[in-house]
């Protein structure tokens, strides 16, 4: 076999499925990179990279459709950020006056708050950059969401948390099911000859939707119970007590430790306390795992390709943080005075490292004739 054949990404199947965690590390890496720049060209490049990988590697599964929703949400955030800047003004001093909105006179005590008034080009550009950064963060999260099955992530949780995790995932299916219910009931309204829009319709549909969702949750709970959810193994009382002490103590330690780190005077004891707390909590979870009897069916393996995917995300983040030291002004194009953003060569190249998953991750099989409808 030729080397190029070995290197080519295989067709995705259950056995070579990329670890869900790898996708999340990759996406969070991109998100960290996005948080380190306001250059719209670099942000656009990040969105492009995330979008390309999603387009190349997502499946036809229902959870894979969330990317579009996240992109829309991102655009909405940009829009919102600009509107707020327009209405509430901005501390950015600007000289390029674009127009002046009528200003609402506010009483004395509301000093510092402004509604309406001058709108400058600088303030709008600043709001745009800021919004774009947030939007990019959201889109990165959306990419992870559509590439990795959320239920698969569960398989990587420690045993003690698994049951809680299942509950959370089942609870999360509540929302899509409710959407399906709304669609069904709107159809039913049409069948009964009523208009499907309007406030009255929403009110009349609301109650049955909630009822239906509740009934379904109870049915799923019954099914889970009958299939052995929550079976526990007998463990000695001493182990149970130690588990409780370790977990509670650990959590307290983490709380106190993080308070220490954040408060000005406690920096000395903060770090060791946090560390000790984390250790105790992890030991507690591990011990707690003994109570659960469950095993895992075909957990995802963290293999070479997972390392490459996760590594490319981390690399983008690290390179971007590093770029902040050698080219800070290119990463944060000036707003006052206004200047056109430039695309700095090396940071741009480092963003492109994030494209790696589009070449190494297993390729999802082309949709098997999806003739049977849902």
């Amino acid at each position, binding site marked *: 076999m030729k080397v190029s054949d070995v290197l080519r990404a295989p067709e995705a199947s259950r056995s070579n499925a990329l670890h869900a965690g790898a996708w999340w590390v990759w996406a969070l890496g991109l998100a960290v990179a996005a948080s380190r720049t306001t250059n719209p060209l670099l942000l656009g490049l990040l969105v492009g990279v995330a979008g390309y990988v999603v387009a190349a590697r997502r499946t036809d599964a*229902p959870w894979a459709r969330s990317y579009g929703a996240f992109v829309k949400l991102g655009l909405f955030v940009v829009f919102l950020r600009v509107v707020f800047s327009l209405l509430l003004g901005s501390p950015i001093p600007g000289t390029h006056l674009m127009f002046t909105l009528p200003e609402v006179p506010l009483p004395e005590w509301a000093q510092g708050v402004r509604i309406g008034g001058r709108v400058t080009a600088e303030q709008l550009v600043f709001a745009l950059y800021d919004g774009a950064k947030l939007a990019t963060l959201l889109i990165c999260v959306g990419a992870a969401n559509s590439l990795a099955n959320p*239920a698969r992530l569960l398989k990587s949780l420690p045993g003690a948390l698994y049951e809680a995790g299942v509950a959370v995932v089942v609870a999360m299916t509540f929302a899509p099911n409710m959407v399906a219910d709304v669609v069904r009931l709107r159809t039913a309204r*049409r069948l009964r000859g009523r208009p499907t829009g309007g406030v009255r319709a929403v009110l009349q549909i609301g109650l049955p939707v909630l009822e239906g969702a509740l009934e379904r949750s109870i049915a799923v709970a019954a099914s889970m119970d009958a299939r052995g959810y929550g079976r526990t193994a007998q463990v000695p009382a001493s182990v149970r007590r130690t588990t409780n002490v370790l977990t509670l103590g650990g959590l307290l330690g983490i709380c106190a430790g993080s308070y220490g780190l954040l408060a000005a005077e406690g920096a000395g004891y903060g770090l060791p306390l946090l560390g000790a707390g984390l250790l105790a909590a992890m030991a507690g979870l591990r011990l707690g795992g003994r109570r659960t009897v469950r095993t895992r069916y075909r957990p995802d393996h963290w293999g070479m390709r997972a390392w490459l995917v996760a590594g490319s995300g981390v690399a983008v983040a690290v390179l971007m943080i590093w770029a902040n030291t050698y080219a800070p002004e290119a990463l944060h194009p000036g707003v006052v005075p206004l200047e056109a953003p430039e695309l700095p060569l090396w940071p741009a190249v480092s963003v492109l490292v994030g494209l790696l998953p589009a070449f190494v991750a297993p390729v999802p099989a082309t949709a098997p004739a999806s003739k049977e409808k849902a």
Partner: protein
Amino acid sequence: MIRFENVSVTYEEDAEPTLRDVNLTVPEGELVLLVGPSGVGKSTLLGAVSGLVPHFTGGTLTGRVTVDGRDTRTHPPRELADLVGTVGQDPSAHFVTDTVEDELAYGMESLGLAPGVMRRRVEETLDLLGLAELRDRPIATLSGGQRQRVAIGSVLTPHPKVLVLDEPTSALDPSAAEDVLAVLQRLVHDLGTTVLLAEHRLERVVQYADQVLMLPDGVMGAPAGIMAVSPVHPPVVGLGRLAGWDPLPLTVRDARRRAGELKARLEDRVPAGPLPHGPASPASEARGSGGGAPGHGKGRSGGIGLFKRRRTETAPGPAPLVLAEGLAVRRGRVEALRRIDLQVQAGETLALMGRNGAGKSTLLSTLVGMIAPTSGTVRVAGRVPHSTSPRELIRQVGLVPQEPRDLLYADTVAAECAAADGDAGAAPGTCRALVSELLPGVADDTHPRDLSEGQRLALALAVVLTGRPPLLLLDEPTRGLDYAAKARLVARLRTLAAEGHAIVLATHDVELAAELAHRVVIIADGEVVADGPTAEVVVSSPAFSPQVAKILAPQPWLTVEQVEAAL
């Protein structure tokens, strides 16, 4: 294996116990079929085996239920999970994970089986149930029959000794139902699994049963003995009783062996039309012409695709109530319907059949304007459904959806009726009168949710009929109905057809189609593959033919009723 000792179950809100003093013993490795009319506590009895009653549902259970020696009183459902596998009526409420393979493994994971064992059993189960192609598919994208098989597979993997199934084939098309039953039989024969199942469609399951348990009396015995006295029985038994065969045949094969003499007696007789307004003699007339429009002379209904258009041009007669030409519907990348040509006349009853996911429901949705056609035209009473206002449309066409509950959202029957009158612009009291007729003895303040499946269907039907639509569509109307409720529904629909309503039913129930329909249209893969008079279509395709037709083939008898009338 399963023992009930003086078991009674009472739910708090009811004065009467749902189950009263049930005593029974189910030996290991038997397939026991639970029969009885709706609301006699079949589901409760099944729930008591898995421990969900009373641990999960509440209520009080007196007496003792033991499964393989474990008392359900001291063992909650999760402690019985390795012993009892349960699949409820609605498979979609059963799924915890989101892909087929994970779902099959879930139960084993909870029991803590070793990874190697789990892997092996998942592979075995995938093959056993024919799910290997679907292993990576998200469950949300599966069809009804596939879901049912996944649900059964998911409880099989932990190798339970007892399998409890509540109406496992009601939502399935005939061939999918046979697959599921074949699997159950294999489990009983090869693995010695004890199976307890409740099912209304006896014609599908009774021949597989080792014993039949009849509620509410709690009598258990060999199928032939019970069927001889049971008020609910499949057509093959009905025919056997009519002909006085003894012992009673339970399978089509046994019945056919006895049928020689009956066939000879029926030789020169002609079946009466299935309906008062039915085609005068489907046996003779329909054979050649491919269509008979009831009540409006002959030769004017749909016919098979190619010939249809020509005949529409030449044949005179009233405009059809439903006229679809070249109808196509796409959903995303899926072509749900392709080049559908269909006509339905007033007074005609049409059965749409076809496997799960073939496009039957989509076609009905198109007729009520919920889905706009991608290409082609559809007219209902001369109107384009999807661009007609809902208020106007409900006076032309009414659909009773697969889940009648969707149509009901008030919290009392009276409020539901008042709303229906308002919607349809009918005189106050119209709907209530219909309800009283269809559902005698239902109080005004009953919550629709507390009605049984059949009662809910009747209420939804009344709501839809309030607008007096000339075209009535029903999607899977007999799911969850017992024989009595089904007989009432059939009688009611016949009256409606006689009054001139056109009725279109999408159904898997071949017996219902045989009793009711003038014409059968079979849809496969979004296309019409057969369209013609019931007797012709149904007799020519084994999957869709009713039991009587199979027994008396090649003579064109469809129902016990026809045979009875002819003798």
